[in-house]
């Protein structure tokens, strides 16, 4: 299984120019999704669609159901009702690994990186290329991992001076970048980012938002969860607002204001 995953389909890496035929179909479609925890309805008949090359902001106060919704999409939870369509096909993920295998990459706040390992080791974690040494013993192909890492970081305009140091030594933004680079390298078809700028300094927030734009330019759609309305206005094309498990509004960013969105989040205004 590892061998199979280690073979990265290179031809598919540039999806930006798939043309209008592919653009006509959403990458992800959520239809009438329901998720209950006992008596609590955490996600209450929510529908949304994400189109190729689009950044969708997911907004909502604490407990609005954003996290539960993305956890259903990324395979952590199984839905109690509704449908999930990915690239036109109905899907049902038994685990986050299955979702990832389909190309849904989720970048959580805790990053899911090994801080004691360097960037190449993290990018290839669990899918390390190995070469035979003396015909029988398999050794890690460190040089290939380093080259590929340099290559993907260059593509994304990410600069890390010393790739061989454990990523614990990197700044928060650089670590975030490594996590994003990993997803890109393994050909993410949809990226879900949970509060990607929460723990970062101002300059680093900008860098991460720049990365989100880079992803969009490459045709990879992004679902961005954030408390920070500024972030959402800076990069999102469209916003979906949730409150108490329900979708209470959907706006094009160009056609809305901070006040309107806050109103939707706290319940002062309805669609």
């Amino acid at each position, binding site marked *: 299984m590892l061998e199979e995953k280690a073979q990265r389909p290179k031809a598919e890496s540039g999806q930006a120019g798939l043309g209008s035929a592919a653009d006509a179909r959403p990458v992800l479609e959520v239809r009438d999704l329901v998720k209950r925890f006992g008596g609590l309805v955490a996600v209450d008949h929510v529908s949304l669609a994400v189109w190729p090359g689009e950044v969708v902001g997911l907004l909502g106060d604490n407990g609005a159901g954003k996290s539960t919704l993305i956890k259903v999409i990324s395979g952590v939870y199984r839905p109690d009702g509704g449908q999930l369509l990915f690239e036109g096909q109905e899907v049902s993920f038994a685990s986050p690994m299955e979702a990832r295998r389909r190309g849904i990459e989720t970048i959580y706040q805790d990053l899911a990186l*090994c801080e*004691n*390992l360097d960037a190449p080791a993290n990018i290839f*974690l669990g899918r390390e290329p190995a070469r035979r040494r003396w015909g029988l013993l*398999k050794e*890690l192909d460190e040089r290939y991992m380093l080259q590929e890492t340099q290559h993907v970081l260059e593509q994304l305009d990410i600069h890390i001076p010393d790739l061989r140091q454990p990523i614990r030594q990197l*700044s928060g933004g650089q670590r975030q970048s490594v996590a994003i680079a990993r997803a890109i390298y393994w050909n993410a078809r949809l990226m879900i980012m949970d509060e990607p700028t929460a723990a970062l300094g101002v*300059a680093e927030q900008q*860098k991460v938002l720049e990365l989100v734009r880079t992803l969009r330019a490459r045709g990879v759609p992004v679902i961005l969860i954030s408390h920070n309305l500024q972030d959402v206005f800076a990069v999102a094309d469209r916003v979906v607002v949730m409150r108490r498990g329900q979708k209470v509004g959907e706006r094009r960013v160009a056609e809305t204001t901070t006040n309107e969105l806050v109103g939707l989040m706290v319940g002062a205004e309805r669609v």
Partner: protein
Amino acid sequence: MAKMVQQLALPAARVKSRPLEIISRFWSWLFLLLLLLFFSLTGPGFFSFLNLQSIVNDMALALLMSLGQTFVIIAAGIDLSTGFTMGFAAVIEAVVLNALVGRLPLGLALALPLSILIALGVGTLPGLVNGILIGRLRVPPFIATLGMYGIARGLGFIFSGGGQPVSVQIPGVGDIGNGYLLYYHPAVGFSWLHTPVLPPGARPRDLVSILPFPLIVAIVAFLLCHWLLSRTRFGRHTYALGGAPEAARRAGIPVARQTLKLYMLSAFLASVAGVLYVLRFTNGDANAGDPLLLDSIAAVVIGGASLFGGEGTMVGTLIGTLIIYVIQNGLVIIGIDPYWQFVAIGAVIILAVLMDQAKARVLSR
């Protein structure tokens, strides 16, 4: 602009931890050097070929167990059962060898390899149980291996029939365990594997023996473990498991299976040490490995591994083992009560853990 700020921001984060990182990486080398210097100046006969060789010779068994302990500790675990697993394997080796010799044809040539295979196989079973308990059933490593500590100890005594070491009175066994790769005598030159027949008049005390058999096994095991840890997927996954188990799981690393392999490897290496013990001392003693448990954990920690997991190297463990055996040997040579050895090594362990914690604190800041 963001690019520039990033590059400016990074060195600041690094400078804070660099000096401490360097000290914590190399203090064990420095400490070993200071010990060698100190004992060379104060202990007559310490710095001689014979004595230095006896230090590395004595540490072979402890080194084997420390290698397994290194894997386990890097994966944020601990193996408290390694000492009695070693004794258990020694008892099995002695009992099986006694039972086979005389019943099988070809004498030792068949009975010895067969008994070794059985002892290594049976001796790895405690590791199998540890690995299932810790990897699949989520029992904390400390508790699982503490339980196995008691179980292996009891089984060792039960199989040796009444608690006394099982004596192996078979001619030739001790020759293997106490043999050397190479002998040198000024009168006859070099001879491989066998002590040379000395011409009349040559003094037997001029004979120099080089590379004892258990040490060769330990060196080969060290090289293999070093390669496994630093160059293979297995090693990489061990670091990942200790550094961030959740990240390792999400990356698709089979965490339970990796854990199982690690504890089996530790028990296997302890069993190798148990077999070597029988070959060297011609008896199987259930207690043989008990004092080596402390040594194995101490060697790993002194060698720079973190008890929090994710850090450590085989070279570090080698240095750590050397430090322990230099202290033990040196204290005897300068004529200090042997019980002070325990005090000294205990103090060194605590010092090493304090360094580890200080490092973790600085790095997490």
